[in-house]
């Protein structure tokens, strides 16, 4: 059970994954809007984007995102990490509203609600599947998962 428990530090890393990912994307978005539209037939103009401080900051944040994402995957399941960090989509939506002043429609608020519900579901469950030989992953009694066919 050594690797199966989440602790405060690991929740902090999940928060870092969520925040660096969403701020990184938003920084890129701000930088690319400064730059104007890029045509697919003139992809070399993307090189000039590398001189924009917002784009550079966004890339630095996304490197931090990938490093913390890989760290999380080293001690938690993919099907735990992906939903648990999907709050990043909500952060992006809130940043677009309050910083970039984009509109959030009723359907988008519904989307935010659903993602939050999904995060709630997954983070209340186990974070890691133990691959012991005969015994499947040990789980807290409160998990409420039926295992048909298991003694």
């Amino acid at each position, binding site marked *: 059970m050594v*690797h199966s428990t989440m602790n405060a530090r690991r929740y902090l890393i999940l928060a870092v994954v969520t925040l660096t990912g969403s701020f990184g994307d938003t920084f890129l978005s701000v930088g690319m809007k400064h730059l104007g539209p890029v045509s697919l037939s003139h992809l070399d103009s993307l090189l000039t984007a590398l001189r924009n401080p917002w784009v550079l900051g966004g890339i630095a944040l996304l490197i931090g995102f990938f490093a913390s994402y890989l760290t999380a995957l080293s001690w938690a399941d*993919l099907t735990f990490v992906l939903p648990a960090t999907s709050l990043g989509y909500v952060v992006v939506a809130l940043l677009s509203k309050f910083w970039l002043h984009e509109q959030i429609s009723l*359907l988008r608020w*519904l989307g935010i609600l659903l*993602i939050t*519900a999904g995060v709630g579901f997954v983070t209340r469950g186990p974070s890691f599947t133990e691959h012991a030989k005969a015994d499947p*992953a040990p789980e807290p009694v409160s998990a409420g*998962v039926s295992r048909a066919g298991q003694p």
Partner: protein
Amino acid sequence: MITAEGFGLAGMIASIVFTATAGDVLTASAMRQIGDLDDIRGVKGLFGAIVAVVTNLRFVSGVFCMALSFFSLLFALSHADVSLVAPASASLTFVSNAVAARFFLKENVDRRRWMAAVCVCVGVALLAR
């Protein structure tokens, strides 16, 4: 009525989702193979942890698939509307990842995780419109 454009669109979205899922599952599998990064960093330092990750074949293949997925997205965006392709592929990837993690990573995808994957899938689709 299903048109040729419809098939093309579905094919483009399917290839984005397929390569993205392969990338996620391969990197997750690589991290499982390498072990707890916090422990490795404690023993070998940050540089040692970075070397352990980037020299792992599964990790390199995973990143290759992620790059393929990115270029399939770019290709699709030059043929179809962003507001359809981006949310459709991002949200479908949550469900395909749950299926692939169940079969290839042998993760215990219980009812709770299915609910989470479906909620996030629908939520992302609504949010990204």
